[in-house]
């Protein structure tokens, strides 16, 4: 048990020190996340429509959290391939479950920090009044959807194991597709009909739908001064789907990673390139 805790800590230790050494880039990425979110939210402000602003703010905030989480997990393997250290991680007597749990934990902490920065920034830019939002409900939805997104991150982390060059590209294509189909900034029904079924299999779709209800978006009782955030019971449907997705994606992502690792060891794909 003590050894497992140390191994989990190893990934937090590594992540912290890498973040510290690349602090300039961390500031740049957070600045960029804040600016792109504010740019989107200001479209609502320009329209003088607080409901539109709120829709965009919730979209920007949640997308930052979920995409950061997914991206950090997936890219952590890509970073290891670029540095050439993946072989040493795979050679260490650490189980893949502990390895990926440690990586996911650090990614989660990172995404929480970025989300707080974006939230504070958005409040400064939009002057939104968040009284009445069911924040507890939002946290519950985020906690449940985190499982599904960690699972997706593990799936995406498989790509850099398969190919050092193409893996990171595939990870970003997958992330872009999620942004397109999940209704982050617009309702899903504006998508072409042939794309709409894909939104049903994206966990982000349900996270956004639930959080918008909990923020009071689209609720006729909401006013600019007081938002009528829905109770948690109003998002039971979304929560159940997210929990089911998490229960499937998390073990499946781990399984896929272990299988691809074995495949890479059979075909010699782990060898450092570049």
């Amino acid at each position: 048990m003590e050894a497992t805790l140390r191994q989990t800590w190893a990934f937090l230790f590594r992540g912290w020190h890498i973040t510290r050494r690349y602090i300039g880039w961390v500031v740049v990425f957070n600045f960029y996340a804040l600016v792109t979110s504010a740019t989107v939210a200001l479209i609502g402000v320009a329209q003088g429509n607080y409901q539109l602003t709120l829709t965009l703010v919730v979209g920007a905030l949640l997308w930052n959290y979920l995409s950061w989480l997914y991206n950090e997990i997936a890219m952590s393997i890509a970073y290891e391939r670029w540095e050439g250290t993946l072989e040493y991680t795979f050679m260490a007597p650490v189980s893949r479950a502990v390895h990926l749990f440690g990586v996911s934990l650090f990614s989660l902490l990172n995404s929480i920090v970025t989300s707080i920065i974006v939230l504070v920034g958005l409040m400064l830019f939009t002057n939104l009044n968040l009284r009445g939002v069911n924040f507890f409900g939002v946290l519950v939805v985020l906690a449940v959807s985190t499982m599904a997104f960690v699972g997706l991150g593990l799936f995406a982390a498989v790509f850099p194991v398969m190919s050092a060059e193409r893996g990171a590209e595939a990870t970003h294509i997958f992330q872009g597709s999620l942004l397109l189909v999940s209704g982050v900034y617009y309702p899903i029904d504006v998508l072409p009909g042939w794309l709409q079924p894909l939104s049903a299999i994206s966990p982000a779709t349900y996270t956004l739908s639930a959080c918008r209800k909990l923020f009071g978006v689209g609720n006729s009782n909401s006013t600019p001064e007081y938002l009528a955030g829905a109770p948690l019971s109003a998002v039971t449907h979304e929560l159940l789907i997210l929990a089911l997705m998490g229960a499937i994606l998390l073990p499946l992502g781990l399984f896929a990673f272990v299988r691809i690792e074995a495949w890479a060891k059979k075909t010699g794909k782990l060898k450092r390139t570049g």
Partner: protein
Amino acid sequence: MQQPAIQVRNLRKSFRKRNGFRKKSELWAIDNVSFTVGQGETYGLLGPNGSGKSSLIRVLSTLLIADSGYVNMLGLTLPEQQDEVRKIIGRVSVDAAFYKKLSARENLLYTALLYGQNARQAERRAIEILEQLGMENAKFSTPLEEMSRGMQQKISIARALMINPPLLLLDEPTTGLDPKSRRDVQLFLEKLQSREGTTILLTTHDMAEAERLCVRIGFLAKGKLVAEGTAMQLMQHAGAATLDDAFIKLTGEELVEEEMVLVEG
């Protein structure tokens, strides 16, 4: 009778290579290789680039799964008991792979934690090893990217040894090092072997290094182990005056391809 540290029997590993559209060919990286390394022995594998040395080390390091054959390391078989094997091996590869922005200390502490070790104890051991390798303590906090290749390789050796492995797999650990660093590493390995009885499997291009460090040497060429014995036995077998000549006679290949390219370039 003491069991061997490493037993390799009829090991084979091939890679598929694409030759144009829809055409694939099979390249044998390891072709029916068998050898045994006794506990506490330093065994050398000599061969030119592409002879299968690194593939062999990667199989023993659990990073590559062989097509067929038998591998046993201190009673543990691969790939079935790879989780257990990982606890008893340390590996140094020709490319010292680290988080280059992190300091030597941070890289080594990360490894210690990854192996579930007490970070402070592991740090003390790493400092001892680095001091023996002739590295100043002050360099411990320097980012790896600011270090010479020789220094990075010394950190790599400390990383492999700080977990106290009974089996050390060294894949061309001195390639590209300056003469002083090369001598420091060789001296350290000699002391390590005599003091702690660590079993060492060493691949190298360097004949003098193999003669100095290895009790027995195997010649690898095109994935096959073509000869094996002490340096003296190999020279006698080939009727050659030097190990270099013995290698050329027994394998039909030059060993120092890299140096030749440099001269021509």
